[in-house]
């Protein structure tokens, strides 16, 4: 019983005994078989099929004004390059301008 709750239930945790349960792969298979029969089926989320996406480590996620975004998209489409190429070029210009490197 907890002090702040005089009407609380007083539980004797010593009486809470776990019973032995078979956790072997065989028991699991038996349980699965019963499940299958009763329509309790595998609903675990499927792994995505096909090629894994390539790692995009260090990818830049630039958020720009909608107009700028449209212009970049148009230019990239016209030149048939990824938008990232334009960002690389812009970065090179920026660095040259600031005399970085």
């Amino acid at each position, binding site marked *: *019983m*907890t002090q702040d*709750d005089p*009407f*609380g*239930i*007083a*539980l*004797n*945790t*010593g*009486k*809470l*005994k*776990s*019973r032995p*349960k*078979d*956790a072997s792969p065989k*028991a*699991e298979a*038996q*349980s*699965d*078989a*019963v*499940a*299958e*029969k*009763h*329509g*309790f*089926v*595998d*609903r*675990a*989320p499927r792994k995505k099929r096909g090629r894994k996406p390539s790692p995009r480590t260090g990818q830049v996620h630039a958020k720009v004004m909608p107009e700028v975004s449209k212009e970049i998209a148009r230019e990239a489409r016209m030149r048939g390059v990824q938008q990232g190429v334009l960002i690389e070029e812009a970065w090179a210009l920026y660095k040259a301008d600031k005399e970085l490197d």
Partner: protein
Amino acid sequence: MPTIVVASPKGGAGKSTTAVLLGTELARGGVDVTMLDCDPNRSLSLWAERADLPDRISVQSDVGESGIVRTIKAFDADGQVVIVDLEGVASRLVSRAISQADLVLTPMRATTLDATIGARALELIAEEEEALDREIPHAVVFTMTKAIQSKQHKGIEASLRGQGIDVIDPPLMERAAFSGIFAFGGDLHSMPPQGNMDSARANARAFAMEVYKRLTGEV
């Protein structure tokens, strides 16, 4: 620790509410409680994030089919309780959890639909007992019960008892505090009052006491 699995393939039968009320009341009574959230909708985890967890309660999120048996085993020790909350679907995860249970609780509202779909859990338990050659104690708990019980409720309850199924008395009444616990997190003592709190607390406590008795073999 005794493991209590809350299972019904019927969505919205009151599983997560039963799990949270039971867990918080047992913890109040001094029992260490580990709750396993096996529902991809994460009801229990969301409850746990709403407010500070009550003393003696911990929640393990995202326990899936491949990890359930191992996870139950990891927390299975005398003197404590594991409560497993499942998604309201017929899945292999439900059956694996039942295979590791010391007690299965099947909540149902007193409707024909809940009773019919809930019965699928009872059939599954019966056959698992046979396949695993082990008694799996189980009981039905009526949820969202009205103060004045409908004819339908009485009929369904009588039918279950007639089949020798253990029906827990008291049921969990329909109460603002019981739905509010998910909005506020914590337990019936920490949340801001919703409706008649004394009655809600007394109901949840009496229910938890009945479950405790089943774990200790007093019923």
